[in-house]
């Protein structure tokens, strides 16, 4: 596992994420969000889970990010108004980060390096999905169908 790559990717991801959380213009924030997810996918690549990384890019950049920008487009009239920034949220977030970091550093069993493992091929994932995880897979299919229908019903024009 490459240290240099790790540093580059984490800086990119965290910077993009911070931009997504704080940028004034909503559209820029949404695009930074997409960049942050590219970074997370890169993390997955680094960790050897290529398939999950590709799926993440596919779903988040190809679908969720586009959905978000479409929502921004459809609620456009509301965007220009200036909004306040809730500083209490920053305090809570920083406190939580400190707490988490402290507890992670405090746990010695976590300071391990990655063992060598067999490459995770798509075939293995497919076999697992079709054998041990076949029922969860069906449930996810059902959930996605329900979400599709639900989203359609929600955005349908209200009849007056």
């Amino acid at each position, binding site marked *: 596992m490459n240290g240099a790559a790790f540093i580059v990717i984490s800086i990119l991801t965290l910077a993009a994420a911070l931009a997504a959380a704080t940028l004034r*213009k909503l*559209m*820029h924030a949404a*695009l930074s969000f*997409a960049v942050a997810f590219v970074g997370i996918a890169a993390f997955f690549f680094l960790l050897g889970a*290529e*398939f999950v990384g*590709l*799926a993440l*890019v*596919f779903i988040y*950049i*190809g*679908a969720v*990010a*586009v959905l978000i*920008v*479409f929502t921004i*487009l459809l609620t456009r009239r509301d965007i220009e108004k200036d909004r306040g920034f809730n500083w209490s949220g920053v305090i809570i977030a920083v406190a939580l980060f400190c707490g988490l970091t402290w507890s992670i550093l405090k746990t010695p069993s976590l300071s391990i390096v990655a063992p060598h493992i067999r*490459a995770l*091929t*798509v*075939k293995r994932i497919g076999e697992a999905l079709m054998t041990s995880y076949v029922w969860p897979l069906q449930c996810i299919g059902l959930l996605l169908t329900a979400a599709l229908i639900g989203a359609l019903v929600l955005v349908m024009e209200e009849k007056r």
Partner: protein
Amino acid sequence: MSKSIDQVFVNAKQWLLSWLAGSPGWVIQVVSILTNIFALLAVFLTLFALISVLERKILARIQNRYGPNRVGPFGLFQPIADGIKMLIKEDIVPARADKIVHFLAPVLIAATAILTLGVIPYGRNMTPFTIDGGILFFFAVGSTTELAVFMAGWGSNNKFSMLGAMRAIAQMFSYELPLIITVLPVVMVVGSLTPERIVAAQAEYTFGLVPRWFVFTPWGAAAFILFFVSGLVESNRTPFDVPEGESEIVAGHMTEYSGFKYATFFMAEYIGMFAISGLGVTLFLGGWHAPVRVLEIIPSYVWFFVKLSVLLFVYIWVRGTLPRTRIDQIMNVAWKFMLPMAFTCIIAAAVWHYAGRGLRGWLWSLLVIAIVYTALSILLDTRRKFAQRVYRFAE
């Protein structure tokens, strides 16, 4: 002899890398990757230049005129002239535009288009980047195009741009489903998402004559046609070029672009077309394999590019022949016809597989496709017949 010609580019790269023997491993890796990237860019940018002039000439032939024939022999240097013109043109950015997004859109769209080229096997041992889930990579990166188109539309802050971008995204979303689902039967039958494995699965010949390309199975033929049409839509080509229909919305999301940025969009469109055609060749037309065993002495990459050229010619031919469709027709076809047919291809492939992949499977899967096709065409028949058009003054 033929083998060494076949592997000439691979050997050349090895030879290049042998100069670096002794350097640390990551240096060799980076150089190897850079070599691949340069080779890829060189080949496809040349092809882009070539096809841009060839398209104009072919279209001209279809329309009974000459086409560009002034610059260089047969007008072959036309792209150079075009390029110079594009480069020295003024780059106009609208005052109210979102300047960052406006700038990033062409960059992103070109980058994704070029990235998709990386996973296609161009010949024996000639895949630039070998990824386990290569097909998924292709689509994952390809789907980023939609975001880039949106950025172009939004960043321009122009009604035509926004409308064009909306149209483009709507139709690309709708056709991405059939596009991916038509790939699934191939992936299912081969059992792998790796392009090389898919090409290798089509290597054999029935009776040493008919190649076992997937396009020669009923489900493969149906899937290939659906794939090709979806590919036409994905690359916004005629007859599905409503996003940039100049008679309606100027140039769609590219309205506010000029000069080199416009050229970048143009290039991305062509490279997207190459990538989709290349994937089609890989998935259905046997990749770099020769159509007859005897002809395998001709190098594999030649076969690949011959097949690619045929597909590109069909693209141009379609553009020269068919009128533009309406956006509602495009969407209707996507959801009511393409999607069910794509699912049928999956079922037909499964039937083919479980009926033993022989003649019996061939006939059964043909039956499945025929039944669904007939049922769909009966259900979707609106009974609106086209009146015979009379051209009074054309004769």
